[in-house]
């Protein structure tokens, strides 16, 4: 009877829908995780008689004390900071400034394909390690969770697509990619409000971050004259000219002064619950949407 003839076609419709949907479901980031990145994130390809840039970031004046962090809510993390956790805004030892991001801003020609290796940012003791890191546009950056407790990585760039991924336990995220250069992109964890880091996205592989001793090295630089820019989250941006001779080593220094603070990418100012709580009238009586 015609009832039975009708069936197969009618089944076909929803099933087709299902297949279409599930087929499309495989979007988003792709495969290769792990891989070490680190300071000079990208590994540039060999360059004819390339030179090297050695640099130092000097710091004069009295560095302000970093704010202590209240990690009481995460004992496992607090245990990792015997000295007591503090923010990493300014790390300056004997006249050298750490966590300064330096990159080749101008003077470079040619295109620079992003390497397939991923830069890694670790989350250890509820702190991002490293605090400041660089990555090439289009290069993968993976976030590692070594704490075994939940973190989320919330990146809100200006010129790139924002992402907000979470990591419930020890694991390594799928590589995230920033398509356009942007210095700097603040990264933060919403579970642990104090967890903040910066990622500099650069169009070329020539960038580095100053270490505890204030030194940095950018290797494998093609000969030429360049504009270097340095960035610090509290003391802002400086530039310097540098000429790299064939097979030579150029040195450059950046000088920061404790008295001049102009942050370039300030993180959002903390929310002040007092602002209108003072309006006791509204405190006394909640205002329902219907009145």
């Amino acid at each position, binding site marked *: 009877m015609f009832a039975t003839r009708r069936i197969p076609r009618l089944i076909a419709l929803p099933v087709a829908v299902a297949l279409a949907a599930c087929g499309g479901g495989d979007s988003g980031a792709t495969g290769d995780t792990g891989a070490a990145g680190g300071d000079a994130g990208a590994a540039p390809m060999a360059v004819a008689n390339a030179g090297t840039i050695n640099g130092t970031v000097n710091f004069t004046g009295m560095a302000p004390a970093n704010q202590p962090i209240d990690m009481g809510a995460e004992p496992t993390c607090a245990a990792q900071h015997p000295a007591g956790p503090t923010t990493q805004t300014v790390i300056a030892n004997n006249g050298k400034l750490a966590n300064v991001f330096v990159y080749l801003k101008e003077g470079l020609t040619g295109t620079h394909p992003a390497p397939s290796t991923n830069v890694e940012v670790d989350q250890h003791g509820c702190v991002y390690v490293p605090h400041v890191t660089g990555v090439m546009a289009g290069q993968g950056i993976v976030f590692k969770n070594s704490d075994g407790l939940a973190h989320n990585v919330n990146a809100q760039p200006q010129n790139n697509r924002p992402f907000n991924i979470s990591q419930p336990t020890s694991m390594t995220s799928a590589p995230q990619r920033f398509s356009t250069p942007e210095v700097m992109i603040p990264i933060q964890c919403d579970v642990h409000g104090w967890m903040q880091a910066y990622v500099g996205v650069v169009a070329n592989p020539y960038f580095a971050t100053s270490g505890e001793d204030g030194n940095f090295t950018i290797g494998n630089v093609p000969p030429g004259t360049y504009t270097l820019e340095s960035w610090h989250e509290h003391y802002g941006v400086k530039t310097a000219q540098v000429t790299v001779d064939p097979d030579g080593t150029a040195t450059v220094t950046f000088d920061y002064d404790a008295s001049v603070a102009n942050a370039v990418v300030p993180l959002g100012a903390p929310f002040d619950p007092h602002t209108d*709580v003072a309006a006791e009238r509204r405190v006394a009586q909640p205002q329902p949407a219907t009145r």
Partner: protein
Amino acid sequence: MNEFWRLPVNVSSYGGDIDGMFMLIAWVITIVFFAVEILLVWFLFRYRARPGRKAAYMHGNSRMEVLWTGATALIVLFIGVISRGLWLDIKDPLRFPEPGLQLIVSAKQFEWNTTYPGADGQLGTADDFIRRNQMHVPVNVPVRITLVSEDVIHSFYLPELRLKQDAVPGMQIPAWFEATQTGEFTVGCAELCGLQHYRMKGTLTVLSADQFNAWNAQQVAAAGAAPGTTPALAAPVMNNEAAGSPVVAAASHAH
């Protein structure tokens, strides 16, 4: 029965009333449940189809309709009447008890930030200090909290204190509780608020009055020491604007 329903330990001044009400309703519905289900099963057995039997031909019975309609109406109205008073006692700001401590709890993804009045016992002044995901309150003192939210709707949930109240951005919602035991208890979020909703948890530490004053003094000192805020003397902050009554007094007149 409590372990059947697995109610969390109750350390709230009004939690007992809520639990009592819950148990009352639980018993009522349990009785109705067994009455109906047993009747149903017995009918099914008693009147199963057998050869030769014929069902009774009837279209209903008005008296029975009236009976069970009335009975149900009475039960639910009874429940409604006894519930309403308790509801207003807990939620109506006009019926809140005189608070011994006023706090601002500000929710954000995914933290509970508690603002303490600081040295001067006044909220909204420079010496206030904020604790993340950790609340400390004195025992046997009515604590009045003002719930605000920075981003999305959260729900401030204290299982052991039988308190739940949404925090809605753009509103300040008052709530109160009074802990009857010292110890550490759970602060949770009961409203889906984003990726890490399940991690939006904190601890409520209920201290004795002395311990609390000590803790508060230490916090005030720390806040004072921290750059940016004016140093403040350690002093008990049990005062609320209205009646500057020290904690002990507050505790006593609460009982």
